């Protein structure tokens, strides 16, 4: 919207500027949460939003940052409206910036509807319980933490780990499987242009670009804009899912940059900081993003979220990671040691989890033995990792026969099960491999497996007939 239109409306000069915030004299009828347009002395426009209104002052956060603003020449215009995005099917194939303006030089999109970007909470009684699994072709994911349509499943890893490559490996398979139905919404927050080019090319190569919408805030773009980017993306996602009945996959990267932008505003407001300086409401704020995944009863579309978050210092207790884990329906972690050892995808299976998995696996979905064989693999792998530690101290002579078998299992598990490279496996292949890995372990150790499954699925053991 041009500032001209707004000149008729109330405006104010700036009193103070502090970080991304500007403070104004009070003015009547300013709404909490209202969108403002800030015009600097050179006529440049910036967007902003009212964060606090009182009789003494008004606080506005400036999305593009307060650089270049001054007290004399800058005016702040109140639009009387909250922050909205115009939506239309013509957005497919387009690239927008972090505040929703076209970035690809192809001109404005004529909106079919406008929606507030904050969204509203989905009434819990209207949610449809997700239950369809998505075959990613990655054995560890499909077998151990199955992705479910409508789920929010983040990917975490320390700096330098192939977060993007793993994400794309999953995304490509989803794209292939869903075909026409799928819309991919990509929100990049503070990512480098190298990263962006990688995603762009991958979308292009996989043929998904034409059915994608990209929102992009690069590393050198205004940081505060990152507060908007995921919300624009999710409002767009909800439009395609619930207005147009499409299955939508949303990739949000990097949520760490998002949280850091939030921290910046909080500290400018002099709020009492929580852990590592993040505001105490980080949990609530993140949930207003992640909880926008889901399916609505009686409607066709779905929103599946794969948020990516860098894990600073490989620390799973970092507040952004920790609070994400408390909201999302599981997590996929990458492991530095597997990555160093050359495994791809280097997924750290023990702390990874899909909480919705049980809804989407089993008889008539994947296979009846899925849950139990997955639990068995977990149990052995966990035990195997402990034994490896022990062997490092006391040597492998100290191990019993069964324990040696479990150590062998652990090696095969990493080599064959985890280290699948970029080839994709069907669920039958993954299940087959899983049983093959445990076939040499004595029955009395197979405590997670029921007889009926063993009889049916256990490959014949070398030598000994059952």
């Amino acid at each position, binding site marked *: 919207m041009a500032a001209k239109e707004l000149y008729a409306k109330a405006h104010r000069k700036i009193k103070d500027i502090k970080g991304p915030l500007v403070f104004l004299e*009070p003015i*009547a009828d*300013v*709404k*909490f*949460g*209202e969108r403002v347009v800030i015009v600097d002395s050179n006529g440049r426009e910036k967007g902003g939003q009212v*964060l*606090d*209104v*009182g*009789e*003494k002052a008004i606080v506005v956060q400036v999305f593009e940052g307060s650089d270049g603003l001054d007290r004399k020449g800058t005016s702040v215009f109140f639009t009387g409206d*909250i922050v909205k995005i115009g939506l239309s099917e013509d957005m497919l194939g387009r690239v927008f910036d972090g505040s929703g303006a076209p970035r690809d030089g192809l001109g404005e999109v004529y909106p079919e509807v406008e929606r507030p970007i*904050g*969204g*509203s*909470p*989905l*009434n*819990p*009684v*209207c*949610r*449809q*319980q*997700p239950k369809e699994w998505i075959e990613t072709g990655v054995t560890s994911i499909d077998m151990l933490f199955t992705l479910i349509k409508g789920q929010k499943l983040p990917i975490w890893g320390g700096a330098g780990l192939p977060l993007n490559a793993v994400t794309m490996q999953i995304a490509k398979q989803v794209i292939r499987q869903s075909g026409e139905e799928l819309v991919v919404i990509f929100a990049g927050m503070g990512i480098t242009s190298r990263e962006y080019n990688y995603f762009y090319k991958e979308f292009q190569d996989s043929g998904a670009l034409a059915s994608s919408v990209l929102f992009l805030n690069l590393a050198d773009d205004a940081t505060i804009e990152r507060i908007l980017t995921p919300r624009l993306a999710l409002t767009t996602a909800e439009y395609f899912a*619930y207005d147009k009945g499409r299955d939508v996959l949303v990739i949000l990267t990097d949520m760490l940059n998002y949280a850091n932008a939030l921290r910046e505003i909080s500290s400018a407001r002099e*709020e*009492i900081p*929580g*852990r590592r300086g993040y505001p*105490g*409401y980080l*949990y*609530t704020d993140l*949930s*207003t993003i992640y*909880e926008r995944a*889901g399916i*609505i009863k009686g409607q066709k579309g779905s929103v599946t979220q794969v948020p990516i978050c860098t894990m600073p210092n490989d620390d799973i*207790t970092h*507040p952004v990671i*920790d609070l994400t*884990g408390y909201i999302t329906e599981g*997590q996929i972690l990458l492991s530095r040691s597997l990555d160093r050892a050359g495994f791809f995808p280097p997924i750290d299976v023990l*702390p990874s989890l899909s909480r*919705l998995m*049980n809804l989407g696996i089993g008889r008539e979905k994947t296979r009846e033995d899925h*849950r139990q064989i997955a639990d068995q693999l977990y*149990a052995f792998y*966990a*035990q195997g990792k402990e034994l490896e530690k*022990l062997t490092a*101290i006391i*040597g492998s*002579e*100290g191990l019993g026969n069964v324990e040696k078998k479990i150590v062998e299992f652990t090696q095969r598990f990493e080599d064959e099960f985890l280290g699948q490279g970029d080839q994709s496996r069907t669920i039958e292949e993954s299940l087959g491999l899983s049983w093959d890995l445990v076939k040499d372990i004595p029955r*009395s150790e197979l*405590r997670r497996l029921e007889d009926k499954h063993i009889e049916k699925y256990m490959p014949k053991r070398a030598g000994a007939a059952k």
Partner: protein
Amino acid sequence: MIQGVITRISGPVVQAKDIEGIKIRDLVVVGDLGLLGEVIEVKGNEVSIQVYEETDGLTVGQPVKSGGMPFLVELGPGLLGTTYDGIQRPLEVIRDQTGNFIQRGATASPLVREKKWGFNATAKKGDSVSFGDIIGWVQESPTIKHYIMVPQGVSGKIAKINSGDYTIDQPVGSLEDDTELKMSQKWPIRRPRPSKRKIPTNIPLVSGQRIFDVFFPLPKGGNAIIPGPFGSGKTVMQQSLAKWSDADVVVYVGCGERGNEMTEVLTEFPHLEDPRTGAPLMNRTVLVANTSNMPVAARETSIYTGITLAEYYRDMGYDVAMMADSTSRWAEALREISGRLEEMPGEEGYPPYLASRIAEFYERSGRVICLGGKIPGSDKSENERIGSVTVIGAVSPPGGDFSEPVTQNSLRIAGAFWGLDARLAYSRHFPAINWLTSYSLYLDTLKDWYNAELTEEFMQMRTELMEILQREDELNKIVQLVGKDSLSDPDKLLLDIARTVRDDFLRQSAFHEIEAYCPPKKSYYMMKAILLFYKNCQSRLGKIPYDQILTQPGWEKISSMRYFPNDKFEAPCQELLKEMAAGGELAAVAA
């Protein structure tokens, strides 16, 4: 109606001035949008209000109105089976009003006003009644008789009372002073509902979860906390308790957690059977759902709404279990609101009154002699009208670190501590409750019940299993240093048996059709089998090489006891025990 104007809006906290006679905790209607809120601070002419809905669009100068009353929940038939938000708005009705997404300013009556209930009068004309007395009942669900109680402040002689079909707004009778008697009443959520007195909690809340029923039991009227890092199983345990515990009524509060988890309860409970009554579980359940993306101030309230509903059914003489998932989100809501008030923060930014709020909340649990006369039709006396509220609170410590304020303050109060362990969860040992650090302070008071219902052997066996696990922990430390080979045979055996205890007894899948619920008697047989097997092995020690010790009758079957059908496990259990005993004798003979 008193009125003032908004002076400041900062997220969920709004300030207003000039409201003559406003009191702390009064309910207010804020702005032109008519948002509900509650006064949380009065400073001179200014008040601070926590608003239960998003405050976008409010402006300075808009009106704030109040009827001078605190926030009240409505209590009466029709609560069971309903899903409410944190301020008792029925979410199904809200859906019909505002669609799939919750819009602001929606209002809806907590109870269905039009529905006619069959009221059965039990009090008669001329009876003197007062607060808590039962005047009749309504069959609220196939299994729950909803007793209609005289509200606080009402007493006198009944002039008129008639059975018949009434809505909750129609009087079922009246007192001599013309006070109308109705089937619904209101209660301020922050005030505990009174009872005659608290009594000892000496009956367990049987949960069908072996780790609780055997190791860390919780009595009806007790309280427990389940702290644990994300993904360790708090919600699954809370839901298991809501499904299988032998409470009459369950109040499940989803406080600042996931929408899909509420959906899960709503989807599954109508199809699951109460193991005791065979009726759908939803018939005994009230849900309070204020998910993480719903307004923060209403999240703070949801806990109180939940416990007030629980107390109300307790007052009828029922055993009520309340789950709060997660109390940390409630504490965080307190912190957020306190921050907006610019109060002086205590530990980790939480307000200094965090500890007392937590304590006050858990204090509302308990087993009580209810106010009022006896339950009509019951052969129990007035002082045997006993009800209970059991509270089970999940705690979500940042980074899984239990030294943080919410866990620590809850620990000081809770009678049972069920600590979840990320390491166990990573290896998919569920429930991931750490058996070494968890505890129940109720063992002593519950002993008599266990001895009477399950024989004295039960608690003895529990002690033996616990000793095995503790010894395992000590031995493991040695193994870490020198390896298993250097252990003596009895110690090796102990490690093998400990693994059986962990794997075949403590582990219990919440998702397996049969395993999800384990009758205590079945736990009894499982313990017995493991200990008998242990004894048999011990008697063979030193007589045969160690690697043959475990290969004797029963070994492979212990792990399948969990799958013995719950309605006929006695026969196969006894058969297995017989087989083991015979094996033991054989071994003795052979040796």
